[in-house]
């Protein structure tokens, strides 16, 4: 009788352990998936923010200038020695592209998380932080028109 009981007990134990291991496996898979989903959602949110910031660069206009942010940035590169300041006439005054762009991208992406580079035939100007090449850097690029039928590029780096 004891032999039969022990055999059954071992059998029962094997089944219990198998079920437990199987359950643990399924739960860990779910947990991992959750982590991936969280990361995926986080990445998507950052992606959305960066795209919105890039759209704002082309479509939003700071007050009293009646010009888009990208236009102010390009004009400041083309006019004069200081590539981050532009004069728009007696009625409008001076615009600082550095100040305006820093404020815009800090609102969308937070400080220290972004870098912007504008490449023109005249000069290349960088705003924000220097972003080194890492795996977790998101890069967004867009072509930009320049005065005189030329074409340039704007690159946004986000960590």
């Amino acid at each position: 009788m004891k032999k039969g009981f022990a055999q059954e007990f071992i059998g029962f134990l094997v089944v219990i352990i198998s079920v437990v291991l199987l359950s643990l496996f399924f739960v860990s898979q779910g947990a991992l998936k959750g982590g991936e989903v969280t990361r995926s959602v986080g990445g998507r949110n950052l992606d959305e923010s960066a795209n919105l910031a890039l759209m704002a660069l082309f479509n939003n206009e700071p007050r009293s200038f009646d010009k888009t942010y990208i236009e102010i940035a390009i004009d400041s590169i083309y006019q004069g020695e200081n590539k981050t300041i532009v004069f728009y006439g007696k009625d409008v005054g001076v615009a600082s592209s550095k100040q305006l762009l820093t404020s815009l991208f800090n609102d969308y992406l937070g400080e220290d998380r972004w870098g912007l580079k504008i490449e023109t035939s005249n000069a290349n100007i960088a705003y924000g932080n220097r972003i080194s090449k890492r795996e977790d850097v998101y890069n967004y690029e867009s072509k930009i028109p320049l005065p005189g039928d030329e074409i340039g590029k704007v690159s946004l780096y986000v960590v």
Partner: protein
Amino acid sequence: MLSKKGISIIAITFIVLISSIAAISWIFYNTYFGSRYQLNVLEQSKLDTIFNEIEKGKNYLRQSLIYSSHESLSEFAASGGNKPWICNTPNYPTLVETSECLANNTKYKVNTYFKKYSIDLPLNFNKEKFRDVKYIVTSSDLSAGKYDNGDFDVEITEGGIILNTEDISITDGLNLKKEINKNRFWYMYNRFKEWSKDNVFGQGICDCVAKCSGCSCAKKTAETAFNDLRKRFDKHVSCRMMKDCCVNQKGGMCQQSPCLDWKQNICSIDCEMKPTSISSGTDSSTSVNSITGLVTNDNCYQIVPVENKLAAIYTYECEDERFFVPGENGPHPLTFRVNAFASFRDLDGCKKKVPCGTCPGPCICPPEPSERDEEPPEYNPTENPASGPDIDTDTDTGHDDPGSHNNPEPVNW
């Protein structure tokens, strides 16, 4: 009665069966719903990427439209629309002509920008050029000054972007509209147009011709016209005037006329001279003191009309410092430059003292020296009546040789 062994086998089988069903269900669920969901996400991700590229393209084209419009306005202003705004009579480009010229130039520039645009992703990308551009400016609003600071729309239509992959194809028709502001093109156009209509320059040159005057009178006329132009602008606009050329000639005798167009190619611009409706303010009729009864002696003479011809081209340039407009060297003041051209002749603009019988008309015979009460009036010039027409150099300016056409002298005010 079941043995214990039988019961344990049933229990084990039951548990294994339940576990297997659970495992198979979970695998089936992940395989079917998970991978299908993954496929959907992948498809959506592709679409998101394509739509993003289209939005980037639109952003690029909107900015291109802004630059193209400002450049077209600047080019038109700098050249005056490639025609003199005074060609004896007012000759300014109408609103329709101006809008069409601006629209054509803007369309060309936007399509040039569009041609240069490309994307870096592995997608098939095709473009359809824009076919129509409109400057939405009405005559009534223009006269009312609604566009004095810009604030007018430019619309470009019938363009397109086509993006496709192996299994997705998206076509987006492009119609864009942007408001152009902080550009005083129409403000300056309006004032130059009114100045051209009043035609102080043309009328003044005609008066010079009728008064037997030359290039010094033309210069005074140009200055009067300049002052008339200057007072039409506000304090933000500075103007200057440049002389391009001036030529003065004398012609044949014995005829009379009002101001007539003088077609010459010494000091000339290619423009169509409309029938002259200008008459000089100076009475150019020959007034001759005639003595009844012909007394023939060696001192008799005639006062005869002599043709006077005068042509002048002046450039008027005004610069607006209120708003700077985009340009290849960065934002700069908008410069509006127009030419004023007048070329007139008056067959009796001058008078000349010649021997009797040169022209039909009365002869003047002064009395004998003992009976003389007063000196006869003096007339200029006193060339040999047998000589033909010649070019007169105005000593006031000293720059009236025919070669001065390409050497404008700026006069800053």
